């Protein structure tokens, strides 16, 4: 959305509550509040209230019986200490962050390279690449996991077949999902495949806004392609990159559907669960909703902390 110019600076927006040319009337206007009311109701009832409920539950002993109506008792910080002293929580957290870091890095680098390539392509070739990227982007998460699961299938998967052909070593029968490390390789391939299009399109839009004359001038002054990229392109799209990194970090940290579905195809849940799936399993499998809620609150706080810069920057942009 950064391509859309922010039209109204503060004062001119203020004018809209008055008639053009007429005297400025300074009376409270309830019209915008009326427009906001439906949205506010939805957000309060369906986001505000559940968040409050979640926080309350995280301070309670809340198990299966309580879910069926037995009153819950207060637990203080017990759920939190239980989560934070749980070894599997820290292992899962380490796993989630390590996976996220690699996935974000690979997606960003590939996405940027694709965007740079698209700039250098003829119109026809660029459209070809765009259509391909759009296809990958539009695939529903669940179906893409199932399709990739089929391609990585142990006995009949096309990937094992091709690897056997290319390397000469027999890959047929290789179980990709059983080993946690290669499980995350498969997961990473799926996320990168679906994540690159968005990065590429946004970076391409950002790079296209750079004035061609600046690049040309630098070229005449003798800047190499590498120098032009780091000294002209990167500073110009710094804001875009920042937003993309933050969004990718958040998306890859909270990835749920893909992990969950891939575990359904194969893979050991205890060794491959990431943040969201771990919380879900703690809640539904063990029935300890209090513990699960405490972990969820911790997750929400982490996400908010990570997105702080993004939110602040967006608001600053709005103020300009």
């Amino acid at each position, binding site marked *: 959305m950064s391509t859309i110019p922010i039209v109204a600076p503060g004062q001119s927006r203020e004018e809209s509550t008055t008639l053009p040319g007429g005297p400025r009337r300074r009376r409270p206007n309830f019209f915008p509040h009326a427009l906001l009311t439906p949205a506010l109701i939805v957000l309060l009832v369906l986001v505000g209230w559940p968040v409050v*409920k979640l926080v309350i539950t995280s301070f309670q002993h809340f198990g299966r019986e309580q879910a069926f109506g037995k009153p819950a008792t207060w637990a203080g910080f017990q759920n939190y200490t239980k989560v934070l002293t749980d070894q599997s929580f820290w292992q899962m957290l380490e796993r989630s962050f390590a996976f996220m870091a690699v996935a974000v890095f690979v997606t960003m680098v590939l996405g940027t390279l694709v965007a740079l*390539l698209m700039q250098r392509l003829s119109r026809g070739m660029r459209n070809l690449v765009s259509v391909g990227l*759009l296809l990958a982007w539009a695939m529903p998460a669940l179906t893409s996991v199932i399709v990739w699961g089929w391609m990585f299938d142990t006995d009949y998967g096309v990937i094992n077949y091709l690897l056997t052909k290319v390397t000469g070593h027999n890959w*047929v029968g290789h179980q990709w999902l059983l080993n946690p490390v290669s499980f995350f390789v498969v997961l990473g391939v799926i996320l990168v495949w679906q994540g690159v299009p968005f990065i590429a399109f946004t970076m391409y839009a950002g790079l296209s806004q750079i004035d061609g004359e600046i690049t040309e001038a630098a070229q005449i002054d003798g800047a190499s392609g590498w120098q032009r990229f780091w000294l002209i392109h990167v500073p110009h799209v710094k804001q875009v990159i920042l937003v993309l990194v933050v969004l990718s970090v958040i998306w890859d940290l909270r990835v749920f559907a893909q992990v969950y579905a891939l575990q359904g195809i194969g893979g050991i849940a205890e060794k491959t669960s990431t943040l969201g799936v771990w919380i879900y399993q703690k809640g539904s499998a063990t029935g300890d909703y209090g513990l699960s809620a405490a972990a969820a609150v911790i997750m929400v706080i982490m996400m*908010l902390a990570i997105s702080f810069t993004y939110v602040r920057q967006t608001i600053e942009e709005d103020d300009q």
Partner: protein
Amino acid sequence: MSVAVAPVRAIRPTTAVNRQTARSRWSRAVYNLIAVAIFIASVFPVYWMISSSFLPTNKVRAATPTFFPGADFTLRNYHSAIFDQARAQFWPALQNSLKVTLLTLVVTLAIAFLASVAIGRFLFRGRKTFIIAILVVQMIPGEAMMLTYFRLIDGVHGLNTIWGLGVIYIATVLPFTIWTLRGFVTAVPKELEHAAMIDGCSRGGAFWRITFPLLAPGLVATGIFAFIQAWNEFVMALIIMSRPAAMTLPVWLRTFQQATQASDWGGLMAGSTLIAIPIVIFFLFVQGRMTGGLVSGAVKG
């Protein structure tokens, strides 16, 4: 690379130019080759899904994969995916998906439209708070809230109902939709409305006749987003719509996977294709409209 070329050019222009065109022709070929590779990598899984869905089981489960169905082409996988009585039923799932998606789309767009006009066109107390709220809300992971949502919807007897699931989708999609639409609202210059008012339109009339039509691309773009979200979502649907008659398509596909122990890849691919193809075609068809150059040209034109 052009560093080396630049000084040479000053002395002997012809050779330098020749060398440069030769090099650019060569790099053009490399770029095109990479472009084709990217296209294949992006499209192959989609192709593989469709191709496998048309294969009989003995070709799917074969040591050598079949890269093109050809003579083995069969619709049997689709037939069993749609009509097999032992499986969860396809048509009710399709209807549920359509209903929930439509509900989400219409309600979200209506509410988001009003809210985006409020924050995009007016200055009022609490505007900034509201903006911060819708940005922050997007960062709250829905996965963390799943069990809370389940209890909330259960509490109002909304389990296994279209509105029960739809209401969650609306809440999930709404903040993003408001924020994106706001961008489109602010991008329509107020001068247009002012001009219409000078020409004798009322303020409301100016909005409806001038600004609203210009917002169409924005409504389409955010509508697509809401559509895709609601159509593809399956985690919430899994929890809320557990009864077979209430399943949406992604949940339908998942039961399918469990029932067959993931061995019937042909059938699974047919099911995946049935879900994915409508959305992929829809996406390709409307994506040109998403960016919508209509608004930017409004003042100049």
